[in-house]
């Protein structure tokens, strides 16, 4: 057993280090480990890969990706930026705060943080440099704030967690609002303090006329979160249907109202989104086979056992779970992280009296932070590519924001009322 674990870890590390695609590393490791250490016929393994995809809730992911891409390409990100800038741009650190709040609002139409870097950072990163912010601050604030994309609902991480843990995706989405507010408040406070300290010039306040104008422009785009959350909460449709409805809504707004996309542009967005979805879901399929490997070979039980002894102390359970997620998040992606660790931890978590939604928001925030933890945080590479900066410069720039994110994570973990208040108002009995 210990030998199997060693073999698995060695294969994972080797495969990832030599830049093999991650889904090949996960499935390949599982094949080799099954062949060498179990009598299970390899021919049943493809079925487990397939089973990882065969889940209706997971289907929400491609549609949310599609809807967010339409909105991003169809002019909504620029409109949100202008809107937020007229509201907070005149504060000290106003442009930094604009990044944070724009990421939060953009998070309400996207479920991923990588797409938030591209959509929001692409516009605001040059603006920050022009306004006299240092390159390090600018890189850090756009890469760090993009985490809000996966915390504010909809969230791809919450969809996968909900599918694995059997928790209500609607309630999970609602809990993201409070957790996102914690992040946004802490990040904005840091922008304010940093800009005061570094004497960044303050921009003039926008006129009421400008505020009205930008509000009108952004109004249609912000109808989308209303449809998503209202529809799911009102029981009008499932999260997956909400995602499909928001695709049609986004297409309508961007082609008919904003007129920034024609049918050809829409088709190109569709192609990109289908590819992005394939890329995400193939990882989900691979990770579920890997999780099966851990269960069948008894590794899940072996890892879970010392953890289970903590169940008398919920605080310790949360602490250890957080540390586990953070360490694995340094090496693997969001979806594998959830699919591999949640089945191991959920038994003890439930036994310790921690609610599935509380643990869900902690998990989602934590795996999202894994996007910016070196060495292998995905968003570090995305930011490095998007802003054409060396990888190490991105890592250095992100460090203070990583610290703030960990502080926010601690608050979300140990003050559950902040994130659970909203779902409790809507779904009685949510924990």
């Amino acid at each position, binding site marked *: 057993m210990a030998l199997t674990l060693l073999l698995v870890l060695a294969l994972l590390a080797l495969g990832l280090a030599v830049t093999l695609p991650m889904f090949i590393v996960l499935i*390949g490791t599982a094949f080799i480990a099954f062949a060498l250490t179990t009598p299970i016929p390899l021919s049943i393994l493809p079925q487990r890969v397939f089973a990882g995809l065969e889940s209706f809730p997971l289907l929400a992911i491609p549609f949310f990706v599609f809807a967010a891409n339409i909105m991003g390409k169809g002019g909504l990100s620029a409109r949100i930026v202008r809107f937020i800038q007229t509201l907070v741009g005149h504060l000290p650190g106003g442009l930094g705060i604009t990044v944070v709040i724009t990421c939060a609002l953009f998070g309400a139409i996207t479920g991923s943080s990588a797409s938030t870097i591209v959509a929001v950072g692409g516009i605001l990163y040059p603006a920050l440099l022009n306004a006299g912010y240092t390159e390090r601050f600018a890189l850090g604030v756009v890469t760090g704030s993009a985490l809000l994309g996966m915390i504010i609902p909809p969230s791809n991480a919450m969809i996968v967690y909900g599918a694995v843990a059997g928790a209500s995706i609607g309630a999970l989405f609602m809990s993201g609002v409070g957790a996102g507010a914690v992040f946004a408040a802490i990040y904005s406070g840091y922008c304010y303090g940093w800009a005061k300290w570094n004497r960044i010039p303050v921009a003039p306040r926008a006129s009421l006329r400008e505020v009205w104008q930008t509000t009108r422009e952004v109004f249609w785009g912000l109808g989308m979160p209303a449809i998503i959350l209202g529809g799911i909460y009102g029981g009008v449709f499932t999260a997956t249907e909400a995602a499909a409805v928001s695709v049609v809504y986004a297409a309508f707004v961007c082609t008919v109202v904003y007129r920034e996309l024609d049918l050809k542009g829409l088709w190109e967005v569709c192609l990109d989104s289908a590819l992005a*979805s394939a890329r995400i879901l193939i990882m989900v399929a691979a990770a579920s086979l890997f999780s099966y490997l851990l269960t069948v070979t008894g590794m899940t039980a072996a890892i879970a056992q010392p953890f289970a002894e903590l169940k008398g102390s919920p605080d310790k359970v949360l602490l250890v779970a957080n540390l586990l997620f953070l360490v694995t998040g340094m090496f693997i992606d969001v979806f594998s992280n959830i699919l591999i660790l949640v089945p191991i931890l959920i038994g003890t978590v439930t036994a310790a009296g921690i609610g599935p939604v509380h643990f869900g928001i902690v998990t989602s925030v934590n795996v999202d932070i894994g996007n910016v933890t070196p060495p292998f945080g995905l968003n570090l590479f995305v930011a490095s590519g998007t802003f054409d900066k060396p990888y190490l410069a991105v890592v250095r720039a992100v460090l203070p924001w990583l610290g703030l994110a960990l502080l926010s994570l601690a608050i979300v973990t140990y003050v559950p009322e902040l994130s659970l208040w909203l779902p409790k108002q809507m779904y009685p009995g949510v924990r």
Partner: protein
Amino acid sequence: MNAAAAARVGWWSGLDRALGAAEWTFIGGALAFTSALLFLNVILRYVFLAPLNWAEELTLYLMVWIVFVGGSVAVRTRGHIAIDLLPLVLSSANRRRLAIGVALVALVFFAVFFWYSGQHVLRVRSIGQTTPVMGAPMWLTYLAMPVGSFLMGLRTVQFLVRTARARRAEGVHLIDLHD
């Protein structure tokens, strides 16, 4: 390059382009179609009180096909999620060697996965299992796996041939991330 070799390249690049276009059209078309289908289904349920009971199932299985055919597109565009830290510290010649080595390993993987998933398809086909709602043959949904791994393997061979021919393999380590 002699005439025969040129003809061979022309023949292959034509097929490659046609196959690529077919894959793109399939995954884009399926995503657009399923979005519209689920939207329509919500309307049918609330306005006409008559939802299509097969809409969810069809969407689910089309999505499986999108994943595996899209997997091939991602191999062709070097778009799969990978951790590309090592190439940053390698010389361009070693980077090329690494890319070739990785492609060979991937090729073996696709061959193994093709073999086992193909066997699974044949087995399901011989049992005659059908999908729960539509009653469609279940092996058609599992077929996405061998077809996908065949296409991915084909794209990997193509990459190997291209890299072996190219003098410098600049940019092969770069991955494209837009999710």
